[in-house]
């Protein structure tokens, strides 16, 4: 009886007793959620266009972070380092298309998925070779410290992270909806054959798609790097993006954001109020359990594209 009370009722008493603390926990969770979302969006863009689950997205985050740090250490000013890193990410996209996607065109998706696993190790290894394997501090001068709104403490960096993620999403959506190439990308996502038939060159579209994923990886790399330093464990955050994608729907950018927030908030709140009872470190598995439960009820995710049945 006591156990049930502790588990089902107790935590809510705690929440009511200290509501401000609860709000801060939620905000912390949202911050974590945005970080997950930043990685998940990169996945979603590639999945939407090509149906490929890009296992290497995590490695691309690391690679982008390492490259940026590398240019900064070479003494480049921040703006130049950022531009140079974007150029490198576009070059990477081009190389991926040439070396991996091009030769494997028409292969089953599972083959392409395997190829991205290989790619992940290659990018990781290449990053290590080029920039060394130490943990790199990344400081691009993002605001630090915190301030109070009423009684609630807010971390300036969290605001910046949220703002950047928001700006990134708006930019992607505008590009997709209102430009010729964005429209072509959506066309390719719908029907490769028909896209070819109207003269949309698929190889060019792959390069653009992977470049966008590369830029998203750079933003994610800057955010994660500022928080935790650029280190090889960044590759592992890719795994956290997976339950986010399952929850949000693999091909939905909105879904990635909303699901990222849900999972970030969910796992943080759960860890703070229930973690002790469950032996701690619940955020290691919480997201996966939520995703699994969700798969039973809505396999296409919260915002997954509806499959049009009519012909």
């Amino acid at each position: 009886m006591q156990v049930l009370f502790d588990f089902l009722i107790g935590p809510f008493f705690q929440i009511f007793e200290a509501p401000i603390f609860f709000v801060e926990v939620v905000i912390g969770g949202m911050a974590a959620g945005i970080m997950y979302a930043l990685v998940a969006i990169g996945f979603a863009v590639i999945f939407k266009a090509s149906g490929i689950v890009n296992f290497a997205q995590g490695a691309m985050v690391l690679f982008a972070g390492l490259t940026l740090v590398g240019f900064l250490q070479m003494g480049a000013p921040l703006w130049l380092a950022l531009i140079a890193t974007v150029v490198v990410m576009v070059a990477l996209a081009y190389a991926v298309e040439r070396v991996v996607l091009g030769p494997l065109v028409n292969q089953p998706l599972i083959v392409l998925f395997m190829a991205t696993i290989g790619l992940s190790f290659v990018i990781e290894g290449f990053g290590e070779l080029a920039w060394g394997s130490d943990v790199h501090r990344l400081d691009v001068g993002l605001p630090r410290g915190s301030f109070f709104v009423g009684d609630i403490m807010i971390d300036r960096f969290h605001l910046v992270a949220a703002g950047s993620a928001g700006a990134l999403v708006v930019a992607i959506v505008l590009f997709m909806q209102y430009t010729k190439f964005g429209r072509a990308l959506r066309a390719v996502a719908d029907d490769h054959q028909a896209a070819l038939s109207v003269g949309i060159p698929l190889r060019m579209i792959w390069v653009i798609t992977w470049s966008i994923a590369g830029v998203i990886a750079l933003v994610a790399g800057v955010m994660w790097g500022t928080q935790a330093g650029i280190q090889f464990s960044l590759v592992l955050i890719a795994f956290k993006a997976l339950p986010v994608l399952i929850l949000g729907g693999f091909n939905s950018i909105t879904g990635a954001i909303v699901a990222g927030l849900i999972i970030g908030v969910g796992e943080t709140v759960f860890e703070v109020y229930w973690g002790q009872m469950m032996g701690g470190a619940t955020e290691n598995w919480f997201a996966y359990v939520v995703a699994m439960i969700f798969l039973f009820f809505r396999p296409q995710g919260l915002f997954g594209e509806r499959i049009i049945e009519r012909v």
Partner: protein
Amino acid sequence: MSVQREARPDEANTPTVEAEKAPLLSVNSIEVIYDHVILVLKGVSLTVGEGGIVALLGGNGAGKTTTLKAISNLLKAERGEVTKGTIVFDGEQVQDLTPNDLVRRGVIQVMEGRHCFEHLSVEENLLTGAFTRSDGAAEIRADLERVYAYFPRLKDRRDAQAGYTSGGEQQMTAIGRALMSRPRMMLLDEPSMGLAPQLVEEIFDIVRQLNDKEGVSILLAEQNTNMALKFANFGYILENGRVVLDGEASALRDNDDVKEFYLGIGGGERRSFREFKSYRRRKRWLS
């Protein structure tokens, strides 16, 4: 006596004064192999003159789609390959170009089964047809209005998601989308499939107008022989990856074998055109 002696394709499609002029499209004894082993086209030749409407007829699996895809170069995406013969468009060998190159040169295919972009609106679908163009937004806008003038229904449905429009509207969208590339030649693959006869008539009428007013040459693959021969001025009949008969549409309509096997008029025990006409085919291919 045989139909193919009555008119050569290039004569039929171009006015006699220009009889010397090369046809806009000529396919010369092409062989197509899928997956490196499956031989599907065994030496197909055909021509389409500037401004012509040519029908490519034949039953299911005869090789109509394969022929069109060989021309528009969509074969490679299906692991098909032209292994013999040449395809010449406007004096240039085109079999090694990409679909993008061909659309730029004015050859565009409207695929079997329409293949609209389901999640894009009808208007967005049309705009994707202008992907290869670089003549500016104003020109593209003007062409969009022209497409709407040919297909007033599409104007009403411009904001609808294409996946939720009717089969006829999707076919119109697919043709309109191709038109947006400003084609010189359209390869239409079974536009009548799954549509009510009245609607088929409506769509064919519009295509005829496109041919008339926009000067778009048409190569039309159809199983609907009756409709296609009413509409085309020349026809080829494919069986098993070979052209077994060709001639002016009017001659084909009057041909007894065509009547029997493709138009369902008259009776007989022969089940395939080939069984009877093999002597003629042999003569053709050996010559």
